[in-house]
């Protein structure tokens, strides 16, 4: 299997799980609504019954946005020009790369949302690995079953990501950038230095992301009990599978980039309400789908390279673990019917 076919397979697996994309989009939307309602309330309180509310309905006025921004508190301080159209993406991407501080409530919700994804990731990876429809109860059963293992894995990844963000980012984008541009009188050169340092930062994040993605995959696809074992196995796989793993990640990143460009071209401006919201939600769903493509294509790549029938031994048959099966087994005199793992 090549990186290209793994990518295409990943896209197919995600396309075949459109209901999961829909579920995740719905969860994302519902997760955002409470804070959205709070922001709505702040805006409504500030506008009151003022005539000044007319202009923001039909278009955008910098005067109102700037006045509201001066009076806003909490999450509402993020209401500004950057919530218009593709400004959303530019603002968040820039904040990500520059590690700009957001209001505490936004950061806290981000962490809670990441935990939600962590919970669901077990079911998602299992679904893509089986490459067939899994029932709802099975999906959540797997999600719950792997959650604590994934939590332990994420504790390690959080530590490493924190190190990258708090130390490596500061060293690259503050110290190194300042040192390299100390006596520079040409902005263009400074810009490309910064782009290079961004690339180094993103590369570092990507390497860790690749490692932990395959750790998750090996943890779930191979039903590993040890998180450390999964990390070791993932590292071995990445090293041994060579350029293809990175090429696949690059292809997935290209899909992400293409999606951003597409949104840039269609994102409505300030005037529209529902059209902007619908197109925005389509963008959110597309982002979720692309995130799943990363996993699905990596699973396809892993399965194509390693976990094929000729490599793995057939699993030992296991008596089902339920009270009824146990009763049947005992009545049949089947002896010890305790389920055994592979």
């Amino acid at each position, binding site marked *: 299997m090549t990186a290209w076919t793994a990518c295409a397979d990943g896209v197919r697996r995600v396309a075949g799980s459109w209901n999961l994309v829909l579920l995740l989009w719905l969860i*994302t*939307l519902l997760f*955002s*609504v409470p804070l*959205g*309602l709070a922001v*709505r309330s702040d*805006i*409504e309180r500030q506008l*009151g*019954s*003022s*005539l*000044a*509310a007319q202009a923001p309905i039909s278009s*955008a*006025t*910098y*005067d109102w946005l700037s*006045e*509201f921004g001066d009076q806003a508190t909490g999450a509402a301080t993020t209401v500004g*020009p*950057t*919530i*218009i159209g*593709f*400004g*959303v993406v*530019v603002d*968040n991407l*820039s*904040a990500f790369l520059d590690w700009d501080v*957001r209001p505490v409530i*936004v950061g806290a919700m*981000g962490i809670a*949302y*990441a935990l939600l*994804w962590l919970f669901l*990731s077990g079911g998602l990876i299992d679904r893509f690995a089986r490459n067939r429809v899994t029932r709802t109860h099975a999906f959540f059963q797997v999600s719950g079953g792997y959650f604590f293992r994934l939590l332990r894995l994420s504790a390690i990844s959080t530590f490493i990501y924190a190190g990258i963000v708090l130390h490596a980012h500061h060293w690259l*984008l503050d110290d190194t*950038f300042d040192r390299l*541009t100390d*006596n*520079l*009188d*040409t*902005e*263009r050169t400074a*810009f*490309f230095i*910064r782009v290079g340092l961004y690339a180094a930062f993103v590369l570092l*994040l990507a390497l860790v992301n690749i490692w932990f993605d395959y750790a998750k995959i090996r943890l779930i696809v191979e039903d590993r009990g040890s998180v450390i074992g999964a990390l070791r196995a993932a590292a071995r796989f990445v090293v041994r599978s060579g350029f293809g793993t990175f090429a696949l990640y690059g292809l997935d990143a290209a899909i992400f*980039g293409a999606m951003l*460009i597409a949104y840039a071209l269609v994102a409505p401006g*300030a005037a529209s*309400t529902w059209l*902007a919201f619908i197109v*925005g939600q389509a963008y*959110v769903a597309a982002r979720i789908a692309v*995130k799943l493509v990363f996993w699905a294509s990596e699973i396809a790549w892993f399965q194509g390279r390693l976990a094929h029938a000729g490599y793995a031994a057939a699993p030992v048959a296991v008596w089902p673990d339920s009270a009824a099966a146990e009763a049947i087994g005992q009545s049949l005199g089947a002896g010890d019917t305790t389920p055994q793992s592979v």
Partner: protein
Amino acid sequence: MTRAAILSCLVIGVVLTIVVSGQNAAPPSAGTRGAANAATLPAPTGAVMPTRSPRNANYTIAARLDPSTRALTASETIVWRNITANPTRELQFHVYWNAWRNAKSTFLRERALLRTPFHDDEDFARVDIKKLIVHQRSSGQEAESLRSDRTAQMTFIAPDDGNQDDTTVMLVPLAEPAMPGDTVRIELDWTARVPKPFARTGYIGSFYFFAQWFPKLGVLEDTGWNCHQFHANTEFFSDFGVYDVKLTVPTRWRVGGTGVARAETENGDGTTTHSYYQEDVHDFAWTTSPTMIERTADFEPDQAVPPSSSGSRQGPVRIRLLLQPEHAPQADAHIEAARAALKYLSRWAGPYPYDQLTVIDPAYQSEADGMEYPTLITAGTPWLAASRVTINTPHEVVLHEAGHQFFYGIVASNEFEDAWMDEGITTYLAARALVQDHPRTYYEQRFFGNFVPWVFRDLEVSRDTYWNRLPGYRRTPETDLPSHPSFRYSVSGGRMVTYSKTALWLNTLERHLGWPTMERVLQTYFDRWQFKHPKPADFFAVANEVAGQDLMWFFDQVYRSSNAFDYAIDTLKSVKEGDVYRTDVIVSRNGGAVFPVDVTVTLENGETIKERWDGQDRWKHYTFTRSVRATSAVVDPDRVLLLDVDVTNNSKTIDGTAGRTAATKWSLKWLVWFQDSLLSWAFFV
């Protein structure tokens, strides 16, 4: 640059193509001209005919820059005349660069309140005066009667804060008093260390900008010497004269300076001396770099504009632009803005009497951007600039700094004490000038380390609010009392008073009086005080005289008070009583400042009722009885009072559903932003 193009660059990465070419740009050949902007006027001379100013502080300077050691060596002759009614026993000089001699200066101590000052030795500067000889000549005498070496008598004083470590004001006692009319010739030899950029002066890479770089006399007034220490948030003040300056730099380094370049002499030792000359100015700044490119253009005045009240007309002006190579595509924007400044301000204030205006586009990280000097300004623009006129394109900064030629350069108020008189007036007029040629200007934000622009095509910014800097004023409207000396403003709040509040109250005054009257105020003020040093009372007197009314009630509110303005519609009720509707409107004054305002009530049948309130009391209750109910009430419907810090509360409607609809719309947009932000966190899962 389209959004998709910018995004493509970011996603795909264009790292490989341009880095080397940008860093290694060869020095341009001398005299690079843009064909579309070929200059056709006779060469400027720097002379001003007839003499416009007292010319009582004349400077002849010969300076040599050694880039390898960052050293400046100079000899300077100042010919100064006592034009006051009183004798003086001393001379006081500004030695501005001593503000960066160490971290104990007043300037750096004040700046430390905002941010950490530099600490590397290489970053600091100094001026060391090796020799100071004074020659005195009595009024009416041809020959100098007294020569004394005052080198050993130089001392430093701190008239503003008593900081003994501050050496930015030098006192030199005279052997004999200089009587009114006497002339004193001072010869100085001095050296200076060029710093990394500090307050718009210094070097970065091969770009040098020199501002406040030479020992300069303060201003002797009838009440004594006006010579303030260098503060973090003030600018400068000096007398008019003739500047004759020779600058020796490495050969093939381009030079730009106040006035006009009269000669270039190659010295045979790898250096070239550039001679600059200008009459009737009060400062000299200059720049040099091997990589700047040059464009020239002409400004031809509109002959239909009538002469000023003193009879002078605007003449043609040569515009000389020195540009960073990476900003070459923005040359036309700079020249267009310079022309606009000359066109509009010569009409609204008075003629620009010099024959050249030099516009410098400073280098990245030079901190020299956005500043004014007589006949020379620095602009400032980013490399990636939008094609539309936005808050970050060079148009406004060029207009603003060129506007300073009129208010600062010609009407030379004291920037230490009354900074609003040049900054505020210029901000107001630059905003007005900008929208004449560019009625639509856009909000822009910069991302990715401040390198990449994103223009919000749906967000226009207006002259009345944004360009008059309402957002800056609104956040801290009561920080400082404008009538206090500017050097005593708070370090963080001074700019708000100087720029924003002043521009807003000037624009408010314009709306109150009408533009024709306001224009006459400006023209009279300019005409009466050009080449002089006016004080606030002088401006207020002109305004009262031209407007034909006592406006001190207004100036007391905006200048002698730090109170904020905030009028609001507190209550709007329209209740049916029998066959009619009784409408109650309560208008309140939430801020401490007072301004007369209109109150308009609109009824269901389209009728409007207008009342005039003097705005004095804390609230005013209006009651109307009509056959139909009211739909809305507005205080200050024409937005005369631009200083109002909360405009949203200026109106109320009976139905009041618009707020809900607007809140829904903008919270839905915010939702997409928030979801996108959440998905960034999901990356780490």
